[in-house]
């Protein structure tokens, strides 16, 4: 199917999703459930990846800049800014696209092929609104927190590696963390996180929602969800960086 038709279908689906829920109480419950499955369930993977990346970034920079004219505290600064600017938003979201995106697409895809979505529609329920909107809202709320968590743990990872290997002194590392800190960078990352949250959840829901066929096709949708989410995230990363940082 051609790309413009898909984009059109995507926006029609989003229009149906972004309507007022019938029951606020049920909507609230759905959001809480999704916060658990989308956000809370991702904490461990984000934590592990962030600690290790912070540690490796610190090691790399410390080893590669063994030049007496480059001050050592730049190691701390580079770990901090790399985490804040790119790692704890873009890279984390690429990982979340794999975990959350495939999960959403296969969940909704399975509901499609087992006629659970038809069952919702027959009951007079707006299935897009019922299934998709809570996921988007939940990701929108939780992703910024995951990002903050990732920044902190990345910096902790760098700290630990400095502590245990001594590639850079703790004093220099911590001094670098404070040096020339630009609070706007954090704001920039949180904005990116919110945008990526919407991209991952809505694109993956779209891929799942229009699954046709059987179990095999659910797998195909799930793969598509990950690939499309990643490509769109990369494009928007470029656009947002251009808009916000230049």
């Amino acid at each position: 199917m051609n790309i413009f038709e898909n984009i059109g279908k995507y926006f029609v689906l989003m229009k149906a999703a972004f309507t007022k829920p019938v029951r606020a109480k049920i909507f609230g419950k759905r959001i809480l459930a999704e916060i658990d499955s989308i956000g809370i369930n991702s904490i461990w993977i984000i934590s592990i990846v962030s600690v290790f990346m912070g540690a490796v970034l610190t090691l790399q920079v410390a080893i590669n800049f063994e030049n007496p004219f480059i001050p050592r505290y730049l190691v701390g600064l580079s770990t901090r800014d790399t985490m804040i600017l790119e790692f704890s938003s873009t890279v984390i979201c690429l990982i979340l696209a794999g975990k959350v995106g495939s999960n959403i697409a296969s969940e909704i895809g399975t509901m499609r092929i087992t006629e659970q979505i038809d069952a919702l529609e027959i009951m007079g329920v707006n299935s897009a609104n019922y299934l998709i909107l809570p996921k988007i809202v939940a990701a929108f709320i939780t992703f910024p927190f995951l990002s903050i968590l990732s920044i902190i743990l990345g910096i902790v990872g760098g700290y630990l590696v400095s502590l245990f290997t001594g590639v850079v002194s703790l004093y220099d590392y911590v001094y670098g963390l404070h040096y020339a800190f630009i609070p706007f960078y954090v704001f920039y990352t949180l904005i990116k996180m919110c945008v990526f949250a919407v991209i991952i959840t809505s694109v993956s829901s779209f891929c799942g929602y229009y699954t046709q066929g059987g179990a095999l096709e659910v797998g195909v949708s799930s793969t598509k969800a990950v690939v499309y989410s990643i490509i769109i995230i990369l494009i928007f990363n470029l656009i947002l960086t251009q808009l916000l940082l230049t």
Partner: protein
Amino acid sequence: MIEVKNISKSFNEHKVLDGINAEFQPGQVSMIIGQSGSGKTVLLKSIIGLYIPEDGEILFDGREFVGASIKFQREIRKEIGMLFQGGALFTSLTVEENVMFPLNLFTDYSKSEKLDRVNFCLERVNIKDSNYLYPAEISGGMQKRVAIARAISLNPKYLFCDEPNSGLDPQNSILIDRLIKELTQEYNMTTIVNTHDMNSVMEIADKVYFINKAKVWWSGNNEEIFHSDNKELNDFVFASELFKKIKENL
């Protein structure tokens, strides 16, 4: 009463339904029969608007459905209960939550009133002590019965069943068939059932529509089937040795 007038539906040039006319009466079980792939499911889903027919009218007690606003369609759908081929229970919800689902959305009952209604519906379909089980934990026959309980929880005026006994053993099939018949009469529902199972037709059909080559090829009641000389209908009905013997002994 549901009136279907001149409904047509195709997928990519392939005409699945071509000018279907039918009338479904309250308090009766109307059955749509035909081979697999003849378009029974498409017809059922077109009647309730899950597929949009290219042509034709559908009237629910005089209310035009095709082309009506989605809001109006949702209003009518609240009066419809549907039993899907695979049951289509929500896998992430328990039996009780499944049956309660429509009540949560569309009634203002208190918690205990809802529970009463759920238990009433479950008892009506002979499900006991399974409120807290998940669909994956109960048998296919039970899933179908829970799906019926969910379909009738809001006291629907119209009941649609897509191959209610596919995948069930003969005993469970008859159980489900009889349940559908009883409920139809008890609540004076307009019931439409898809099937390719002639046993069901003999058991519960009040009116039969035979779909062949995208058209209503034959219609009548389940007595008349035996005396029809429609060739395609006979080929379909008397495919099994059992039914051939029955015909010979008539």
